[in-house]
């Protein structure tokens, strides 16, 4: 038996590799988890999409649990998720704050007029500096932020009702309950 043991080492190594490969099939190598989970959203001071004179700061957002949605008019999948966002905001289950990323103001305004405006506040990040601080690497991305401004979840890709109901809603309820 001992004799076989030595020659079975390659088989064992292969078995381990195969196990990882199997696990790997269910993972997405392009999805990058945010190191900002559990940390406060970055400081910023930016105008809104509606008005270049209105300046929004980080503290203005505190006090409520909200979704921070990064969007842009050049982004195809933002259009795909927009309807979901509008439905969510109408349901009143959660506030949605927009972060308009590297976009043009008139285009963004036209988009909202045409497709509906789900956002309570819509921040205009022309240079994308705040997006960098948020670790945004593509649009759309959605963050779940609590009333103290702490990030609890990040989703890269379009928002869906399933995602909202199954993952986000329980977290939102929990956060509202706590604070």
């Amino acid at each position, binding site marked *: 038996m001992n004799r076989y043991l030595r020659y079975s080492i390659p088989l064992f190594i292969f078995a381990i590799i195969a196990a990882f490969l199997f696990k790997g099939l269910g993972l997405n190598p392009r999805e*990058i988890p945010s190191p900002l989970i559990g940390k406060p959203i970055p400081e910023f001071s930016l105008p809104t999409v509606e008005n270049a004179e209105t300046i929004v700061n980080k503290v203005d957002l505190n006090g409520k649990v909200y979704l921070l949605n990064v969007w842009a008019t050049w982004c195809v999948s*933002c259009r795909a998720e927009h309807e979901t966002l509008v439905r969510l905001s109408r349901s009143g289950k959660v506030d949605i704050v927009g972060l308009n990323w590297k976009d043009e103001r008139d285009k963004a305004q036209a988009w909202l007029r045409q497709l509906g405006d789900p956002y309570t506040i819509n921040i205009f990040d022309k240079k994308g500096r705040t997006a960098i*601080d948020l670790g945004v690497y593509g649009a759309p991305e959605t963050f779940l932020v609590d009333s103290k401004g702490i990030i609890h979840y990040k989703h890269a890709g379009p928002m869906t009702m399933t995602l909202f109901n199954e993952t986000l809603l329980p977290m939102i309820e929990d956060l509202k309950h706590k604070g």
Partner: protein
Amino acid sequence: MRVFFLTLLLIVSLPSLNAATLAEYSFENPSQGEDFRAIIEEMRCLVCQNESLAGSNAELAVDLRNEIYDMMKQGQNKDEIIEFMVSRYGDFVLYNPPLKPTTYAIWFGPLIVFLIGSVVLFRILKRKSRTQETELSAEEQQRLNNLLKQSTDNRDVNQ
């Protein structure tokens, strides 16, 4: 298939390509320029398939290059820049994995593999020099010779 491809495209939209290369970055001190290039070459572009920040033309890569350039201009060093990037995007951005407890496997694993290799080598050598001479058996040699009857060069070619 096609549906899958389209969804892949839809999942994350990337900012469009933009005009910029490293030509725009000038430093008074040439060594600073080299450091700058070394840093952005070792940073992974987040939106591209597998390119460095230096090689990518994606808009985010350009923004990040600008950001790093500004930081260097302000006199921040490599560690501060790495910290800036990692705190936003995680270790994923670093082509050169940082040395910390979770990455010990990557950095010290190779030494262990090396060690195992040497141990195997020495064990085989020890065993070999102890075993008795077992040349090709006469029959084996005969068959080998018959099989591939070599007219003249039935001799060790590589000595």
